[in-house]
């Protein structure tokens, strides 16, 4: 904050232009540019939240440490994107075969009002058995989204209900909890499995 204030007041015209050019480069070509999401999630070890899985167990970021993790957001009243993501992930897990057993796969609801533990249990039951469904109080969901730098928003629909806008990427973490990469919603399916394998491989590196 201090530094920003000094820059703001002290920068002469030339300095400001240089800064703008730098910011432009950073955003377009530089390291701040090509990531599909503006910000990467922090490490799982730096997150702090308490949720409940679909079997009623208390869970948190520490539950995920020790095995690579694939995590994503959604809600069970979602007709299009969420079942598609869950089906895609089920397909990737089938492709990975035994390797999938070494992973945590977590579907975190952004709609805890409708997605109770029982609702999550019923819903994940239709997909790959490795997929766990996590829910919890709204303020805890907000803390998860904070850690992931993910967003969600409740939007009313014409039918009188509401829907949720939400980050649709799939996030991959190493066994150490370090963020590895994400799978964009529209990314071709054949890119996904190699990316997951990369996160699985980082398990050994993360352990050292």
């Amino acid at each position, binding site marked *: 904050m201090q530094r920003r204030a000094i820059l703001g007041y002290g920068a002469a015209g030339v300095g400001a232009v240089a800064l703008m050019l730098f910011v432009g480069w950073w955003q377009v070509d530089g390291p701040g540019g090509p990531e*599909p999401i503006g910000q990467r999630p922090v490490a799982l070890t730096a997150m702090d939240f308490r949720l409940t899985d679909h079997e009623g167990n208390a869970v948190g970021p520490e539950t995920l440490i020790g095995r690579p993790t694939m995590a994503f957001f959604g809600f069970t*009243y979602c007709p*299009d*994107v969420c*079942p*598609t993501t869950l089906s895609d992930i089920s*397909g990737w897990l089938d492709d990975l075969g035994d390797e999938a057993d070494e992973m945590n796969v977590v579907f975190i609801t952004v709609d805890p009002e409708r997605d109770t533990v029982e609702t999550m249990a019923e819903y994940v039951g239709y*997909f790959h058995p490795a997929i766990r469904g996590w829910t919890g109080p709204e303020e805890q969901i907000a803390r998860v989204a904070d850690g992931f730098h993910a967003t969600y928003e409740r939007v009313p629909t*014409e039918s009188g209900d509401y829907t949720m806008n939400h980050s649709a990427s799939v996030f991959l973490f190493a066994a150490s909890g370090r963020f590895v990469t994400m799978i964009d*919603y529209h990314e071709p399916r054949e890119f996904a499995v190699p990316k997951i394998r990369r996160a699985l491989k980082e398990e050994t590196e993360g352990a050292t």
Partner: protein
Amino acid sequence: MKKHILTGTLTALLTLGGLSVPALAGPEDVVVENAWSRASIGMNRPGAAYMTISNTGDEPVTLIGLATPLAMMPEIHETKTNAEGVSSMSPAGEIVIAPGESIALEPGGLHAMLMRLQEPMTEGDTFPLTLLFDDGGEVTVEVPILGIAARGPED
């Protein structure tokens, strides 16, 4: 791919006064293929249906809405995912299909959003979905209901 099923069940209906109105680019030029949907859990959640709609005629056709006994509020929706990876969906409005073109209703893009279901969508069943066009024409297609985890018409 599942064309054979659809050719059997697809019915084109003209609701205009006469038997046929050859001058219009009517629904007789509209071909619907690979329709499918996912089973629902109960009736509280909206459903979604997908298909390819082709205009084989010489004039543009304009899709203005949907009707089905399955849902009180069927509507064409579009899902969009922005640069930050955030997905949202909203009504797509009228859709013009140019001569010789097709539009794909597919996961993550356009879909027939089935709000206020009147009955659960059960795997193995089908339901009629009517596409409404701006010239008063209608095309009704029988949409197969696949499993909840279905990814496409092949599943």
